[in-house]
């Protein structure tokens, strides 16, 4: 007969404020097999865990149920406590009476208490059927993959590489650098973005432990923490990088005028053979086959003729390689919100309505206008500029209720830069609220207003329309309670941030969850900000949530330290909650073999009684992930899943329905 201990947590008032915890504990004592039950303020605290350990020893308990929060929160904690008390860690269960009960039924305390009793009883029923399981270990491949070569990816890679481990950076563009490379100056210090980024780019490319894979994408993911098998596709660049000496003659002579520069946010043309920007790392050109005259018409080959080292290779093919990694950092960054969604601002229709990133390129001295801010329509210098904040932020009607966190700051920065370059221009900013929570951020915005004379108008813009060569910006000034119309030469939309368009498909490759916008979901909003629910996969930067450069760098460092933590062990413990086959029951129908997503089932001819070979299924312990697809599919109930066994689930069902 089992000897079960039930430990009912108050969680301060989180549980006890709604659920009558005393009644739950008293009820527990009436259940068969329960030899001990107490309630306590914080079970997860040190004294709480010690109480469990003491009780196990004193009352010779062989399994425990902790009635507290979600097992996703503290299952590990109480398993460890169980182990410390001398029983097998898998002889512990939790009953989730906080997330699934007290927090969601606070309107009916009696119902919540009854439910807590039932949930506890279900866990008691389950733990009664628990089996002691032995630990399983897996090796760790000490090589990390960083996806995304922006500042987040570069920082994470450098930190991991510095600690002595190999890192591969996969970047889909021809150069690393990401969004930060496009920026002019950075807030709140107004130091030049390139000046602080390019040394890091070079450091990453020269680091002996870092390998750059640009113009590449992850196409397939298999395996698990410590042992990922990842397929990486290198797109054909049509240039042999071993021969290329980065002289740039090919780009210079390329006659194609079809493409617009992605790096310059499509306000300037680029050649068909190109590097995205002069400081590109690696500084090797690629041929855009959709713009290349040769690939489109079969004639041209000028780059091939002018190349001094015969590096052009029109026959190059995409290459796919499969490599092993122990950990992955997702650092895919952001896109800016699509300005076309705001029809009233006329983006796309009026050439002088530009996005914030286009403005960055305009005011950047390495940009297409060499830092001269001009109107895209007539190349004249604007005299009156208007910034509109929250374009795709804090706007429920456009499906973007969140604050993008950086736009208030970069708007102030852009307006200040404009004033520095052209002191005589007028800069107006329409805002909802100013959100400048950061070190020296509020001061920065104040400076824009007080020292630089940027005019802030609190209100939204309802419409922009063109009148002759001017843009009439009509909006509200809610502080004076009046409508305002500004005759502007140029309007800059302070676009909010959103995840990269292909973030969702990447998340699906890794089975990482994402929110309704496509931002990757961290393991816990406070306590697991860089981990994901998938062990060994970490997140850094704006792909997880909107953030600025300092926060991105901090998170990248944190992700790297998590990777290093993983790499510090030779072997790592993995959960033994996997499937097992009873060969006596198995009929050898191969259904499980066919449904297993991991090919963890093998068919074998096994001697089940003397001289009798039987065709049966066998689980490969190290490959099985414990999803239970085989259990759900088995016709003869020959497969079972440890930790979620048939008898456990059926006993839980019976308990609920009693």
């Amino acid at each position: 007969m089992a000897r079960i201990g039930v430990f009912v947590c108050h969680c301060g008032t989180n549980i006890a404020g709604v659920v009558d915890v005393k009644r739950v504990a008293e009820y527990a004592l009436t259940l068969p097999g329960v030899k001990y039950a107490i309630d306590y303020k914080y079970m997860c605290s040190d004294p709480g865990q010690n109480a469990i350990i003491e009780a196990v020893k004193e009352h010779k308990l062989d399994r425990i149920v902790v009635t507290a929060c979600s097992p996703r929160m503290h299952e590990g904690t109480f398993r460890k406590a169980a182990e410390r008390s001398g029983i097998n860690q898998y002889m512990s269960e939790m009953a989730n009476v906080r997330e699934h009960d007290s927090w969601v039924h606070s309107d009916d305390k009696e119902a919540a208490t009854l439910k807590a009793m039932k949930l506890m009883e279900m866990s008691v029923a389950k733990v009664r059927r628990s089996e002691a399981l032995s630990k399983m270990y897996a090796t760790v491949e000490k090589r990390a993959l960083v996806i995304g070569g922006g500042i987040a990816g570069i920082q994470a890679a450098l930190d991991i590489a510095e600690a002595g481990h190999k890192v591969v950076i996969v970047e889909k563009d021809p150069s690393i650098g990401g969004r930060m490379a496009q920026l002019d100056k950075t807030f709140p210090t107004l130091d030049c973005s390139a000046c602080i980024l390019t040394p890091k780019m070079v450091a990453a490319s020269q680091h002996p432990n870092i390998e750059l894979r640009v113009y590449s994408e992850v196409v397939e993911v298999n395996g698990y923490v410590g042992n990922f098998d990842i397929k990486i596709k290198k797109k054909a660049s049509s240039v042999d990088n071993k021969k290329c000496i980065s002289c740039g003659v090919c780009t210079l002579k390329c006659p194609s005028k079809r493409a617009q520069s992605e790096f310059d946010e499509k306000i300037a043309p680029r050649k068909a053979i190109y590097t995205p920007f002069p400081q590109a790392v690696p500084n090797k050109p690629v041929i855009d086959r959709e713009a290349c005259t040769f690939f489109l018409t079969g004639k041209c080959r000028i780059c091939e003729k002018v190349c001094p080292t015969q590096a052009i290779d029109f026959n190059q093919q995409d290459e796919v390689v499969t490599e092993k990694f122990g950990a992955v950092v997702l650092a895919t960054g952001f896109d800016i919100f699509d300005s076309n969604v705001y029809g009233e601002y006329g983006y796309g229709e009026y050439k002088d309505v530009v996005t914030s990133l286009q403005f960055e390129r305009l005011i950047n001295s390495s940009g297409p206008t060499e830092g001269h801010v001009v109107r895209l329509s007539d190349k004249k210098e604007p005299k009156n500029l208007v910034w509109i904040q929250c374009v795709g932020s804090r706007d429920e009607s456009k499906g973007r209720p969140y604050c993008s966190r950086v736009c208030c700051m970069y708007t102030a920065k852009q307006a200040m830069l404009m004033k520095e370059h052209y002191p005589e221009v007028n800069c107006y900013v329409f805002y909802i609220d100013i959100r400048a929570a950061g070190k020296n951020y509020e001061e920065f915005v104040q400076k824009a207003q007080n020292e630089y004379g940027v005019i802030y108008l609190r209100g939204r813009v309802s419409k922009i329309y063109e009148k002759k060569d001017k843009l009439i910006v009509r909006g509200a000034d809610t502080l004076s309670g009046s409508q305002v119309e500004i005759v502007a030469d140029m309007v800059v939309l302070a676009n909010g941030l959103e995840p990269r368009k292909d973030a969702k498909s990447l998340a699906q490759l890794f089975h990482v969850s994402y929110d309704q916008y496509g931002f990757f979901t961290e393991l816990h909003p406070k306590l697991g900000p860089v981990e994901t629910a998938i062990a060994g996969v970490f997140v850094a930067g704006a792909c997880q949530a909107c953030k600025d450069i300092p926060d991105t760098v901090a998170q990248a460092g944190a992700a790297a330290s998590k990777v290093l933590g993983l790499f510090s062990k030779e072997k790592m413990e993995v959960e033994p909650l996997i499937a097992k086959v009873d060969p006596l029951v198995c009929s050898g129908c191969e259904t499980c073999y066919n449904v297993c997503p991991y090919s963890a089932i093998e068919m074998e001819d096994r001697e089940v009684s003397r001289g009798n070979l039987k065709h049966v299924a066998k689980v490969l312990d190290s490959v099985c992930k414990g999803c239970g697809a085989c259990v759900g599919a088995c016709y003869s109930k020959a497969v079972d899943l440890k930790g979620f066994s048939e008898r456990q689930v059926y006993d839980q069902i019976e308990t609920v329905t009693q």
Partner: protein
Amino acid sequence: MEVKEKKLNIVGFLCNWCSYAGADLTGLGRNIYPADIKIIRIPCTGRMDPMMVIEAFHKGADGVLVSGCHPGDCHYSEGNYYWRRRYAHLKELLDFFGIDKRRFHASWVSASEGKKFAEVVKKVVTETQDWKDSNSK
């Protein structure tokens, strides 16, 4: 009028990675829903044996909800597809058994859809109650 004097007994099977986490988020967001549902954690909806649903009804459950990851988002790649197929058949089969369709539900709730989970439970409870009321008349 003696409505809802006895609470309903609804069994919820939630996959660990999406819907169970989603239900945790419902708690974190303090979104109130009826207490009639009790949740059994399973690793994946692919683990669901249709017999488990039948057993729940057999033992007297008023309603059953099975919830997993959205198609394409399964932690184990394809478990929810297996479940989706089983669900389609099971629903018809239960109907044939004489178990009203209002009592059996399946949904996709991701780890970030806390509010949605509360809505799903409300719907399941309303429909099951509907069935119960129409049955007792």
